């Protein structure tokens, strides 16, 4: 009996050893490291990710030297047109036909969730930089995906908490009437109430809306100190423009933007957006390192990077370093290496990748500068404070992710 047990144990052990050696020591599929970049290249989200993100990815490849341990790095890219079927199909084809090892970028959350399912099924890696939905690491979490830059939970919590603590106790919520808006609204309400504030009133606007006058008037009439914008993209820019026309900030009410990117503020201008408080995962003009990297990016693209574009570079760099250290492009070995190593670069300090796929790093509460305080075209934010990563992101104890054991 013991003999058979021993034999069995040895057999299992050697089998395991065999598979683990198979996964390590210079094993590279196709003798190349193949990465892919998927994003909206032409539509609504192309300014915050798009071609700029591809440029950031190419920078990462150049900075690591174009090859790792003698294996060449190649990149393919595609426009998902914000359609989940096109995105998922493209990635499936990349994996089946072109044998890619990982995919980066990804913006529209419907595309991301669809792609993550394919990536999980095929055991590859996806590094999500563009998407906002916190459900990517919650109910839709997968062991093969890492959500790098930000999520709705962190944005809502960061901004709402800071604003309430600074005395913005009464809130009016302007919410886009679809699942994303509702989720954001819920998160904000919770934080506001927990910190002793109250929601005076709220209004839901159809998605998408171009005329916000009636909603802004309602917000103005509510007498709330803060107007929270639980919407995104064109809805946010339209509501900001309307608010500016009605002189909301001049009259003493504060605006809290919950999903606003550097490119939005840049294109709207400081006159419209001044005084707006927001949470961001990255701002170019924060430290020496961020300035140095962003300057290089600026020289290539003529624009300062959004947090998404910086995140694409950071996530790919971390991947490349993990491949280098593990000396293989085998998925599980690389993922393990990525999780074991803290993320330390211009983008994040001591960032760590959690079991649910969330890359936890510090977020920043920023305020949009007044036109008089801005010294150049891209001098847009004043960083008010750092929100520690553990405070910013959803704690694992609240997670619904299947990978989190309770």
């Amino acid at each position, binding site marked *: 009996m013991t003999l058979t047990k021993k034999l069995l144990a040895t057999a299992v052990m050697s089998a395991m050893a065999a598979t683990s050696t198979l996964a390590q020591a210079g094993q590279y599929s196709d003798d190349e490291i193949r990465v892919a970049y998927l994003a909206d*290249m*032409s539509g609504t989200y*192309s300014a915050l990710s*798009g*071609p700029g993100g591809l440029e950031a990815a190419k920078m990462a490849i150049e900075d690591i030297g174009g090859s790792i341990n003698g294996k060449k790095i190649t990149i*393919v*890219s*595609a*426009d*998902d*047109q*914000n*359609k*989940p*079927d*096109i995105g*998922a*199909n*493209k990635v*499936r*084809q990349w994996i*089946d*036909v072109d044998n890619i090892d990982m995919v980066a970028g990804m913006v529209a*959350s*419907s595309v991301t*969730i*669809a792609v993550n*399912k394919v990536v999980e099924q095929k055991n590859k890696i996806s590094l999500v930089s563009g998407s906002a*939905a916190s*459900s990517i690491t919650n109910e*839709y979490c997968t062991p093969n995906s890492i959500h790098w830059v930000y999520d709705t939970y962190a944005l809502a919590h960061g901004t709402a908490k800071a604003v309430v603590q600074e005395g913005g106790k009464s809130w009016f919520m302007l919410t886009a*009437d*679809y*699942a*994303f808006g509702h989720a954001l609204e819920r998160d904000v309400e919770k934080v506001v109430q927990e910190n002793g504030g109250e929601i005076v009133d709220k209004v839901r606007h159809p*998605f998408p809306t171009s005329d916000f006058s009636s909603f802004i008037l309602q917000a103005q009439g509510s007498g709330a100190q803060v107007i929270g914008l639980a919407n995104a993209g064109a809805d946010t820019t339209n509501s900001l423009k309307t608010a500016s026309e009605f002189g909301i900030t001049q009259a003493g009410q504060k605006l809290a933007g919950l999903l606003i990117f550097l490119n939005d503020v840049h294109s709207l201008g400081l006159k419209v957006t001044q005084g707006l408080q927001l949470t961001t995962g990255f701002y170019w003009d924060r430290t020496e390192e961020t300035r140095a990297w962003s300057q290089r990016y600026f020289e290539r693209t003529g624009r300062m990077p959004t947090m998404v574009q910086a995140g694409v570079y950071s996530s790919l760099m971390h991947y490349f370093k993990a491949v280098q250290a593990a000396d293989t492009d085998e998925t599980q070995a690389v993922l393990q290496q990525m999780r074991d190593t803290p993320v330390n670069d211009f983008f994040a300090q001591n960032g760590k990748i959690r079991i649910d796929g969330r890359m936890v790093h510090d977020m920043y509460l920023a305020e949009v500068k007044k036109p008089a305080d801005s010294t150049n075209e891209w001098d847009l934010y004043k960083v008010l404070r750092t929100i520690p990563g553990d405070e910013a992101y959803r704690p694992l104890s609240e997670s619904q992710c299947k990978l989190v054991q309770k």
Partner: protein
Amino acid sequence: MISKSDNPKVLYGVLLGLAILAPLAIYPVFLMKVLCFALFASAFNLLLGYVGLLSFGHAAFLATGGYITGHILTQWGLSTELGIIFGTLAATALGYIFGKLAIRRQGIYFAMITLALAQLVFFLFVQAPFTGGENGLQGIPRGNLFGLISLQDNLSMYYFVLAIFIFGFALIQRTIHSPFGQVLKAIRENEPRAISLGYDVDKYKLLAFTLSAGLAGLAGSTKSVVFQLASLTDAHWHMSGEVVLMTLLGGVGTLFGPVVGAATVVSLQNYLAQGPLGSWVTVILGLIFVICVLAFRSGIVGEIQKFMRKNFE
């Protein structure tokens, strides 16, 4: 069907052979997408090409088929065939309701009513809890065919989709060549005359509309199983526009036109997305549409038919 003199059976045989061998050369998931959209466009063409009704709300049927099938497969755990059947039935029922309301008007008013109804359905899918809003229904299981053949494998999935497509296509072919189809064409050519001949035109229109909606739903159901997702893209009015583009580009009122049109549009979307023209897909599609309308109005297949008739008959 390129010309009446040669035997269509030979043509069908050759095409079937090509379809069976195609996945050896071309990526099967891409082919499945082409087939789904080809069925969708053919269903649309049944209305536009043979009854002369321009529906601008066909996305609603595609999406209904997809969402209902997706919901049934993920939540109720029924088998794949049943999921697709229920999805198709739901779209057919919706088509009956749409048709009942829309066929009372003609021309542009008909198009606007279908568009308005489709927008209502879009709103429903944005708001309804079971659709997952803008994230869509994700992770729909492909399941097993008849509980035996695993559809996880792309090849077996492809042949399943091919069988569905052939079923839908044959149904359309039979409809067009039946006496019922002859009446539809008569309505297209001259509606008052069809009425004066004693045909209950509304009944014919309604039946054709319902049939077209059902087939569009079948395409949507199949698509949701292939991609394992159903999303708002399918319900958006862009999709209603895209199917018009496919049909006109391929050749309206020809049996193979929509198939060719769908293949062209889907290939452009897929292959242009990758490569240097990545961010120009929508512009290029628009240009092609403009050129098609200006230069060859009867579409790719329509022009080929004209050419054949001119030179070989």
